[in-house]
């Protein structure tokens, strides 16, 4: 058990170092940082002075170490385009992205699980078939198209929901939240649905297949034989056992939700990290790109690690193979 955990954490650290190395190589070698920071009228001497000051003449390994050390303290340098601290810019925009991702995950679970249970219990009803076809179409449509369709229907035709921005936000400490105002909540609806739709279909299909599997098992038959009510069997016994994989998948998907927020944020002009990253890609603003990559990488590694360790805690079979390896 302990050996498995140590090995798993060690692997995560290696992945993180590789991600950091890629970020650093981007940062250091794509375009000359000095060229990006100074104007045309700067003399070669001034450039050289800036090079020394930034430590660009030091050995690459020293620079890499400095980069990692800086990243560990949330210091990612200065944006070429905005001349502001990258960490501060990302920090300011993080709440928008995180609230959006959280709401879309909640939406995906609240809608996906009941739909999955229904299609699993009543396989042959026309509503189940409709749900399944609908989910196939949902998977085939690209995210940005779904967003545009939602905007066209709800913002242009019916004019009931806003199509861009966060609405009114309230500052709670360092966190700016849109969850406390009516316009902020309204602004969240369309983006959350757009972002959560894919996860919703995923959860629905997962719950459906798990339900089909569980309903065949002996303990469900026994529960029925004991004369328990249908509700108690379906929800108390069957659903409970399908939820472990659902929670795992949702957890693992959280990272991709945050990454896919790039697209949703562009469609809805949502002032989050994804939009910032996209603008940095368009303007070749390397420090922001590198910082975003590090951040997402860190998130993915941590989520994967937590899920793996939880699995070890829950499932004794993994513990055995972990020891054997």
């Amino acid at each position, binding site marked *: 058990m302990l050996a498995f955990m140590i090995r798993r954490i060690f692997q995560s650290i290696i992945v993180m170092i590789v991600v950091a190395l890629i970020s650093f190589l981007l940062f250091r070698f794509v375009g000359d940082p000095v060229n990006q920071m100074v104007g045309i009228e700067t003399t070669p001497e001034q450039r050289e002075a800036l090079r020394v000051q930034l430590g660009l003449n030091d050995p690459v390994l020293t620079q890499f170490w400095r980069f990692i050390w800086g990243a560990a303290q949330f210091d990612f340098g200065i944006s070429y385009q905005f001349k502001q601290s990258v960490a501060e810019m990302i920090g300011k925009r993080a709440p928008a992205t995180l609230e959006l991702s959280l709401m879309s995950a909640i939406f995906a679970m609240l809608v996906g699980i009941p739909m999955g249970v229904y299609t699993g219990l009543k396989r042959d009803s026309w509503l189940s078939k409709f749900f399944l076809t609908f989910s196939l179409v949902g998977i085939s449509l690209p995210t*940005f198209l779904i967003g545009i369709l939602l905007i066209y229907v709800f913002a242009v035709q019916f004019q009931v929901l806003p199509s861009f921005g966060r609405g009114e936000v309230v500052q709670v400490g360092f966190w700016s939240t849109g969850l406390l105002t009516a316009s902020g909540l309204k602004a969240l609806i369309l983006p959350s649905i757009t972002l959560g739709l894919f996860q919703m279909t995923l959860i629905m299909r997962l719950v459906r297949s798990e339900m089909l599997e569980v309903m065949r098992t002996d303990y469900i038959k026994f529960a029925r034989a004991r004369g328990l009510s249908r509700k108690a069997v379906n929800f108390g016994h069957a659903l409970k056992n399908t939820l472990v994989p659902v929670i795992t998948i949702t957890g693992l998907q959280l990272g991709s939700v945050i990454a896919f927020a790039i697209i949703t944020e562009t469609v809805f002009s949502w002032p989050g990290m994804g939009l910032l*990253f996209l603008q940095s890609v368009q303007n070749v603003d390397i420090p922001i790109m590198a910082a975003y990559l590090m951040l997402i990488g860190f998130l993915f590694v941590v989520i994967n690690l937590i899920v793996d360790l939880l699995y070890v805690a829950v499932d004794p079979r993994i513990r055995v193979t972990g020891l054997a390896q």
Partner: protein
Amino acid sequence: MSDQTAPQIDIVEKGMLARALDSDIFFSFRQSKIVMAAAVVTLIYFSMALFAPWIAPHNPFDLASLDLMDGLTPPAWEEDGVPQFLLGTDDQGRDLLSTIMYGSRISLAVGFASVAFAAILGITLGLISGYFGGFIDTVIMRIADIQLTFPSILIALLIDGTVSGLFPESRREDSAFWVLVLAIGLSFWVQYARTVRSSVLVEKEREYVQAAKLIGLKPLIIMFRHVLPNVLGPVLVIITINLALAVITEATLSFLGVGIPVTQPSLGTMIRIGQDFLFSGEWWITIFPGAALAILVLAVNLLGDWLRDALNPKLR
């Protein structure tokens, strides 16, 4: 005597086409009307893309023929529509139907090129990884693992941003196509490498590989001439499904503004252009290319699903 040999001759004389029409795969094809419809739709798209310069009513890339006065014409059946522009025009006065034809051409070209690139890269690395094993296998598979933890759209975005950063500003429009192919191809290779590697691990223990080794063939020849043809089945399925994914990724990147430039719009670029006009009532600029994209992706996806089931012996 002649009675016994007759049927054998019959089998031999059946042409390739007849045998193909008699096969299990074609049988399962004829079983499903949806799959047949998907195949027809896909064929229409392919021919539209191939023959766009000849069948499109206008040439949307020819700036001289564009007239800004024609801009924002609604579809022919709406008020103010003209029969000359069946699906209306965009803000530049480009005929939408022609632009969709040319746009599918670019989208499918990027799709095919990037899938081919990903497949060649992935298959080669998978073969090497599975056949030689050891250190080189560990390195390739670790890289694949790390890449697999990130969504492919993020990797494509990063590669796209980095590579276009290496080009000077003036060259970016010309290089956009190949940068996209590189970005999408590099974000998709992992699946091929993993699939091929696992098949190779099984195949290389077989007698025919041992025999090939025994007669002194070089590893490269054994890998590509003997092992490769036997591991291609699953790869074919991935290629079909990846084609739909690659078209989506191209459209997404173009929509995000880092893909194909506006002068030669792909489907994604057109949707991006049209989004600004959604609120002023010019819905057709977005909706028609969007529908064209959705139908294309759905059709290719359905074909991929069918192929996966048809080639899977467990489901027969």
